[in-house]
């Protein structure tokens, strides 16, 4: 992974919002025992993952442009972009898994689906924060 400095960007703002949501969802999960609390927990988790998604896609755009700016030839630029996109693939898959888990939790009433969705959302938001911080 390429390491570059980024100015304080919208990605950081999205991440901040995501972390706030994360705190809210952990709090709400602790007391999630009624239907309305379950709905609230899923909504908060979705908001957190969506914020992380927006932070990630913003960072992705800036990161790809940084690669283009640093390229000394078209061939090198194409190779670096291809390399980065291959490394990006697992991150997109993690978002897909997290979103799908939330969809499952939204259609079920059991504790297992809710816990799994919240755990995936929490891990993903934290991982995205680490990814973006690590590239700065």
């Amino acid at each position: 992974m390429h390491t570059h400095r980024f100015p304080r960007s919208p990605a950081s703002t999205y991440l901040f919002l995501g972390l706030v949501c994360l705190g809210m969802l952990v709090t709400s999960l602790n007391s999630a025992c009624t239907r309305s609390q379950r709905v609230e927990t899923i909504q908060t988790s979705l908001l957190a993952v969506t914020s992380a998604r927006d932070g990630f896609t913003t960072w992705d755009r800036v990161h790809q442009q940084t690669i283009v700016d640093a390229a000394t030839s078209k061939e090198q630029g194409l190779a670096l972009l291809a390399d980065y996109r291959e490394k990006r693939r697992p991150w997109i898959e993690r978002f897909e898994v997290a979103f799908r888990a939330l969809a499952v939790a939204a259609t079920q009433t059991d504790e297992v689906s809710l816990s799994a969705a919240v755990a995936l959302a929490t891990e993903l938001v934290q991982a995205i924060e680490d990814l973006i911080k690590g590239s700065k």
Partner: protein
Amino acid sequence: MADATDVKHILTIAAAAVDAIESVTKIARQTLDQKPGKLEAVLSVLSAIAAVGETVAAGIRGEVSVEMVQDALTEMRATVTQNDLAADTSLDAKFR
């Protein structure tokens, strides 16, 4: 008591529901015309109408629906594709 925003929200959902149910009903009529008396066809139509009803009810209650989550996922894929295209275009322009 619901405020104007709530009423507008509910009316928007209701309008979408009417459109969806009209579409399902149209398909139902066509299906029943082609397969008169088929129990499966009737059940599939009832199931489709029930699914529309559940989605509408979830929307009115402010719950997360599967469609909402799918939309979030679709938006992410579209944005990533746009990012790729922007980078490719920028690279082309740089070494033109």
